[in-house]
Structures are given as structure tokens and as C-alpha cells.
């Protein structure tokens, strides 16, 4: 059992490095067009956002419509630090990333304490309100540039942007995989399954809710910093509830509680409008139809069987690759 797990891990590591190498080469050699290059960075912070929201919506089972709030706090805190610190680029980014994450985690902690007694629709509405509330607060805090926001945030070139974005995504995936497969992960699933039963076996539901919101906000905050460094500016208009809804669509589309699904859905939803740019006038129409089709396919059992078959084949390919790797060693 354990050996199999390790082999799987080796396979995942190889896959992660291979994907990185391929995209890095494509960017460095200029094969990837410029618009696609920036898209790669955009995908990275949306993947982090979708993964972090999945922890709240998919694993804990609470519908949060205010994810943009944590994203905004992270972006503003991290970028404000980056602007005023004047450190060299890379250490500046890493410290900003931590500051963004921690600030968002603090806000996530406070907000989750405030909404502990709410469930379902009420929770959704209050988180939605918090999202807009944070956006308004940011406008009036001196030093954050009001409605114009912060400009002149230090920026990466596209390759650096991709590298750091990719690194953050991998770190988040590793944390979430370990977290969801741990005792804590099972406890959270139990709370989602049946809150009363969870309480009856002695689980402190409130503590876990706060924990999940805090971890999730930390990750959303890091996504915010990535976004700021990518766009070199942040403004309140970047964090409307549209963002929260978009990320929620990714989570639902990818499947509640499926980390893999969130990653894939985030990539598709970010890339699709860009790829459809050629079709200009019909872009949004095709986008909408594609979303509906994906939703319908995802909930169809026949398609699920097909998908399982395809995945099986993919796994056997991965197994044989790791086998080759083992022999070489």
C-alpha cells in the first residue's frame, strides 16, 4: 500500500516538473504568443482561488459568496508592502506573498467568527455583504489610493510571473492534498455530511469552521498578491462580487470537493474567453454555451463512466512512466 502511494507521488512530481518545463520552454522560446503568456499567470492565481474556495464550499459545505474579500485583502496588503518596502524584486515578492496571505487569514478568521451561527442561504448573503463591505473599506483607508487603487507595484517579466505563479499553485496543492487526507480533512467532511451527528461525536464544529475559513483566506490572499504583481496595480473594481461568482462557478463546475476538478475548471474558464477572442462578437455566447454543456456533461452518468475509462488509461500511462523511471534509477 505504502509503496504504491510513493510511486504515485513520484509520478506526480515528474508530471509537475514536466508541465513546468514544457511551458517554460514555450515561453522562453517565444512559441507561445504574448497574450497566451500572460494568460498562464492569470490561470495560476485563479487556480489558487478556486482551490481555496473549494475548501469552504466543497469540503466544509458552506456556500460563501464573498471570496473576493480575502482576495482583495491579500492583494492590497501584499502590494502596499511591495510598493513601500523598496526591496529587490524576488525577496520583495516572497515577503509580500506572506504578508498578503497572513492579512487575508486574519480577516478570514474575524469574518468566520462573526458568521459562526449562520448556515445556507443566510451565510451566503452575509458573505456576499462582507465582500462588498471590504471593497468599500479599502476605498477609504488612506494610503491605498481610494477608487484608483495602488499603481506601480513591482512587476515580473512573463517568465518569472509564470515561475512564481506555478510555485504557489504547487505549494497550495500540496498543502490541500495533505490537509484533506488528514484526520482534519475527514472531520471536515463529517461536518459537511451531517452537522448534528458531527456534534454528537464530540467534534467542535465552530473551531473547524474558523480553521477552514482561515486557511482558505490565507490562500486567497496569496492569489491576490500574485494578481497584484501580474497587473502591477490593484483597484477596488478588481474585487467585485463578479470575481466571487466566477470562482464559485469554477468550484461547482470542477466538482465540489474535487481538487483536480477545481484546477481543470479554473484553467478552462480563464482560457476559454481568451481562446475565443477570434470569434469576437459571439464570444460570450459561445462561452455561455460551453459552460452549460460542461455542467450537463459533468452531471451525466454516461459521461462520468467515459471519463473514468479515460482516467484509467491515463493512470496506466503514468504507471509505466514511473516504472521506466525506476528502472533507470
Amino acid at each position, binding site marked *: 500500500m505504502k509503496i504504491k502511494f510513493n510511486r504515485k507521488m513520484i509520478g506526480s512530481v515528474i508530471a509537475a516538473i514536466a508541465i513546468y518545463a514544457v511551458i517554460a520552454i514555450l515561453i522562453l522560446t517565444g512559441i507561445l504568443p504574448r497574450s497566451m503568456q500572460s494568460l498562464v499567470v492569470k490561470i495560476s492565481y485563479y487556480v489558487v482561488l478556486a482551490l481555496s474556495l473549494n475548501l469552504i464550499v466543497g469540503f466544509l459545505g458552506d456556500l460563501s459568496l464573498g471570496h473576493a474579500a480575502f482576495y482583495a485583502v491579500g492583494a492590497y496588503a501584499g502590494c502596499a508592502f511591495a510598493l513601500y518596502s523598496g526591496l529587490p524584486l524576488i525577496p520583495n515578492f516572497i515577503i509580500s506573498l506572506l504578508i498578503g496571505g497572513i492579512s487575508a487569514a486574519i480577516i478570514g478568521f474575524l469574518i468566520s467568527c462573526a458568521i459562526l451561527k449562520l448556515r445556507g442561504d443566510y451565510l451566503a448573503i452575509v458573505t456576499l455583504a462582507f465582500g462588498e463591505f471590504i471593497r468599500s473599506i479599502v476605498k477609504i483607508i488612506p494610503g491605498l489610493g481610494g477608487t484608483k487603487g495602488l499603481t506601480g507595484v513591482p512587476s515580473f517579466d512573463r517568465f518569472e510571473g509564470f515561475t512564481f505563479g506555478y510555485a504557489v499553485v504547487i505549494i497550495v496543492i500540496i498543502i490541500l492534498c495533505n490537509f484533506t487526507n488528514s484526520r482534519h480533512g*475527514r*472531520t471536515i467532511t463529517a461536518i459537511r*455530511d451531517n452537522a*448534528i451527528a458531527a*456534534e*454528537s*461525536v*464530540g467534534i467542535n464544529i465552530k473551531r473547524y469552521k474558523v480553521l477552514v475559513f482561515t486557511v482558505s483566506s490565507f490562500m486567497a490572499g496569496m492569489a491576490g498578491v500574485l494578481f497584484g504583481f501580474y497587473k502591477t496595480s490593484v483597484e477596488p473594481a478588481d474585487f467585485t462580487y463578479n470575481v466571487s461568482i466566477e470562482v464559485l462557478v469554477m468550484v461547482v463546475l470542477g466538482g465540489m470537493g474535487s481538487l483536480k476538478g477545481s484546477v481543470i475548471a479554473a484553467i478552462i474558464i480563464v482560457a476559454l474567453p481568451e481562446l475565443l477572442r477570434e470569434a469576437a462578437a459571439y464570444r460570450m455566447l459561445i462561452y455561455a454555451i460551453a459552460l452549460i454543456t460542461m455542467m450537463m456533461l459533468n452531471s451525466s452518468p454516461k459521461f462520468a463512466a467515459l471519463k473514468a475509462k479515460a482516467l484509467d488509461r491515463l493512470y496506466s500511462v503514468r504507471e509505466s512512466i514511473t516504472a521506466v523511471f525506476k528502472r533507470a534509477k
Partner: protein
Amino acid sequence: MFTPLLQVENLEVNYGVIRALKGVSFEVGTGEVVALIGANGAGKTTILHTVTGLLPAKSGSIVYDGHDLLKTPAHKIVSMGMAHVPEGRRIFGALTVYENIILGAYTRRDKKEIEESIELVYTHFPRLKERTKQIAGTLSGGEQQMLAMGRALMSKPKIILMDEPSMGLSPLYVSEIFSIIEEISKSGTTVLLVEQNAKKALSIADRAYVLETGTVVLSGDADDLMHNDSVRRAYLGE
């Protein structure tokens, strides 16, 4: 000298403006099986939820083993040796049978003792042992009820509170569940049983309380109540 393990006095609970409990008092002694019987809406489940901390009380007192339960949060009550089998077979449907059982030992740390408890649960419920890897949501109703009971036993309780264990089960399963409750009681665990099936409940209980719209209207030895005329008419359908 009768020393109650659980003592409830003058308990009043409101749902908004509705008075669900209007001053209920009862007690459960160590080793007893006590039944609370009554029709829908009499306040039986409300009592259990208030005892286990899921609902706040307006006034009154609940003392368990020297602790004031009204001041104890729900998740701490389990580690004091009180287990609750909630109404309607509240299991974790997405987890396996084994994972459900393990979660019952959530408040315990000693791995070896937990293993022993699992074996004990399997001796009470051999059916669960056959299905350890099955997803709990796919069990039959009776098996789910067994799982909920087995899970509650995993906390090694001094007292176990059961809410309508017979609800929605076939007569065959009802008999099986009740004989297991008797077994659990014989192995030294105190049982507080809430039931609509008064006949079954009185047949295994030592004492019982009859509830009507938020108050205790009758109480006494289960055998006496079984032969009480008004109980027979109202709850035993005779």
C-alpha cells in the same frame, strides 16, 4: 440510596415564542434504562437536544455526574461520557462504515483502547463488521441505525441517549435494535431512551416518563405504566 447520574429539574425551553418544554423534571440512575414516551410534539427530542447542548434552555437545571450541562458546550459533553444517537439515523453518508465508527472515538486518543472498542462494537453489531468498507449512505435503514448506535458506543459512554431508534424501521429490525439496546444496558451502560413506540420502550425500560405537550403527565416503573389504563388507551392502542 438512589443517586441519579443525570438529573433534570424544571427544564423550560422555548422555540421563539413557542414553549416547547414547560418545566420538565426527571432523573436517570446509574445502570438504569429510562424511557421518555409520548406523541409527536410532546417535547421528547427537545429534551435530548437540550441535554446534549444542541439547544439552549430558558430556565431549569441539568446536572450530569456533578457537571452543570447547561454551561457545557456540545462538543465537550461527549468526553464526559455521554453519547447521543440522534434521531433519524444521522450517519456520515459519504464516509465508509469503518470511518463512521472511528469518528465515534473522536474524543479519545489511546489507539489500543480504540481497537478494543471497535471489537466490542462488532460483537454487538456483527452486520457492521461484514460491511466495514461500504459507503455508509448505501446501508439499509436498520443498518444505518446500527451504525449510529455503534458509533455512539465508540466514545465509551457511561450513559447513552437514544432518540427514536425504531423510527422508520421494519418490525424485524425494531426487535433486533431493542434487543441490542438491552445488551448494551446489561454490559453496564446507562440508557435514556426516547420513543414513540411505547410498547417496545416500556418492555425494556426500568422506569418511564410520559410526556404530553411539554410536561410530564405520568411517571413510574415501566411495568406499572404498561398496565396503567390511560397509558394503554393513549399509547398502546388497546
